[in-house]
């Protein structure tokens, strides 16, 4: 058990190192020397010179060796200093991200959890009911095949424009003042619903298909045969099958997180929903390298943490991990 966790932890640490290094290296070595460009832009801004002194010297000081710059980058990272945004000058990257990250959580967490739970239940239902399966499977396939942003557009069109039920952009109306008032919460909810719905539905298809296949597989195993031979009802066999089938679904969740987060980026673009994804893409359009790097970093950290949490949960539900001594299942 300990070996399993340690092994995972090492992978995540290495991944983090890799991501940070990539983050640091790419702008430095990309063609067109974006750094020089960045420097010159900052120079003309008010107070830009001071920025140059603090952050730049540490990471991009051109008179220092790459290794010193790399170390400096890490130092500023741990100090929480991610630089200053150009597009939202003079706000610090860290503060901008702090404000945006809540929007990611608020659409991602419910979408992931609900789609996983409901998707698995629907998939299990489909796996045992042939008639329902023939109807549901194409629907699931359609959902999972849809590009996240296109599906978001369809949702936006149908519910937002044709039916006019929901606003199609931003997190809340420009006229509203944020606060714990009923009016604001309702307004926030209306803006939240479509981005959430599109993320929820696309993922739902994938989980349903996965569990449906697992149920079919599990009800054809030797243990299922044995149970049936000894007079177990189909219901009990299905329950046992579900309990076993849920395991790869948990692992699958960890693996899919990267894709889901990417999907959220696209969805945010469609709805101009101000999460990290939206922020990052806007930053790219404006060549705001510090902001880009900051967003990327935070997204990676979120994904790594989520992965680790899922690994721990998995450990508790699969007895084979707890009792065998190999790291890999």
């Amino acid at each position: 058990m300990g070996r399993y966790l340690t092994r995972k932890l090492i992978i995540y640490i290495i991944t983090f190192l890799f991501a940070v290094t990539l983050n640091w290296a790419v702008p430095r070595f990309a063609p067109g020397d974006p750094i020089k460009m960045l420097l010159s832009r900052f120079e003309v801004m008010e107070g830009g010179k001071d920025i140059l002194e603090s952050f730049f010297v540490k990471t991009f000081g051109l008179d220092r060796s790459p290794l010193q710059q790399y170390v400096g980058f890490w130092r500023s990272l741990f100090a929480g200093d991610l630089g200053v945004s150009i597009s939202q000058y003079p706000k610090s990257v860290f503060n901008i991200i702090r404000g945006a990250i809540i929007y990611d959580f608020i659409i991602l967490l419910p979408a992931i959890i609900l789609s996983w739970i409901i998707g698995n239940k629907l998939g299990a239902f489909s796996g045992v009911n042939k008639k329902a399966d023939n109807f549901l499977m194409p629907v699931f396939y359609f959902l999972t095949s849809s590009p996240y942003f296109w599906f978001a557009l369809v949702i936006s069109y149908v519910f937002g424009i044709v039916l006019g039920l929901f606003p199609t952009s931003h997190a809340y109306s420009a006229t509203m003042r944020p606060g714990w008032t009923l009016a604001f919460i309702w307004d926030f909810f209306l803006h939240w619903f479509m981005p959430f719905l599109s993320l929820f539905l696309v993922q739902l298809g994938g989980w349903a298909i996965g569990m449906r296949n697992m149920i079919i597989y599990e009800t054809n195993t030797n243990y299922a045969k044995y149970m049936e031979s000894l007079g177990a009802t189909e219901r009990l066999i299905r329950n046992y099958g579900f309990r076993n089938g849920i395991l790869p679904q948990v692992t699958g969740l960890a693996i899919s997180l990267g894709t889901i987060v990417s999907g959220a980026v696209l969805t945010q673009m469609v709805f101009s929903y101000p999460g990290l994804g939206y922020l990052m893409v806007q930053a790219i359009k404006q060549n705001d390298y510090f902001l880009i790097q900051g967003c990327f970093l935070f997204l990676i950290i979120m994904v790594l943490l989520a992965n680790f949490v899922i690994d721990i949960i998995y450990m508790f539900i699969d007895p084979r991990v707890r009792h065998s001594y190999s790291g890999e299942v």
Partner: protein
Amino acid sequence: MAGKDFWKRHENLYFAVSNKKVILGVTVFLAIVALAIFGPMVTPYDYEEFAGRGYQPPSKEHWFGTTIMGRDVFTQVVFGLRSTLLVGFLAGTIASAIGLVVGFVSGFFSGKAPDEGLMALTNIFMVIPSLTLLIILSAYLPYRGIATQAIIVAATAWPWTARAVRSQTLSLKSQEFVNLSRISAAPTFRIIREDIAANMFSYVFMVYILQFNGTILSSVGLEFLGLGPTRGISLGLVLQNAVNWNALHLGMWWWTIIPGLILTLMIVSLYFINTGLDEVFNPRLREM
């Protein structure tokens, strides 16, 4: 023609071509590919050309309507389809090739150093959200051609194939007929070729289809964000333009819904083929 005898010998092939899902999937897929290949030849317009009045819904002159500036949507879609499919195909092939080698070597030497190292590498690439990585890479490259695009997309897509191939290799390795070859002191390469590779073919083919789906979606996502090939038109770019011009708010559903629908249908068709083939190669799932 050998007739009935041929089918009896290639029983799997018979099942493959008579499976309803496979037939449906192949039909839709080929139809869309035909659109990409022949569409540009059939359309009288050029995709950049101002072909008519803007803001036109689908009609006889403009099958998919026109954009707000008057460009023919059908033309844009078929040319864009070409570009997107090409990137997806290239990327899928490269990713599958890398994944195949990595997964196979890893599975063959399972438990030893090459396996541990490759698996660590695979896990690292898997955890990183691929689109985010792609965005970073793409953003810093001022010029992106189709090949560059494909390589970048492939670079984040291969881990999935590697993992699948590895697990299949592992399960094959422990099967009796492989051990038999080993006991008979057959040369390693021959074991690989005859016992393992021959049985992996069907599996790898299905994995390739899934890989292709993934790379297409990644490519389109990048294109939508404006990070696709810097020249020319692509499907994602068509949709990006539509969004930028507020097509939906203006009621121009044909500009957004149709291009994406074609892509979605293509991916659905590939899934159908995959599920159908799964039934063929795993007889237990066959509907007899």
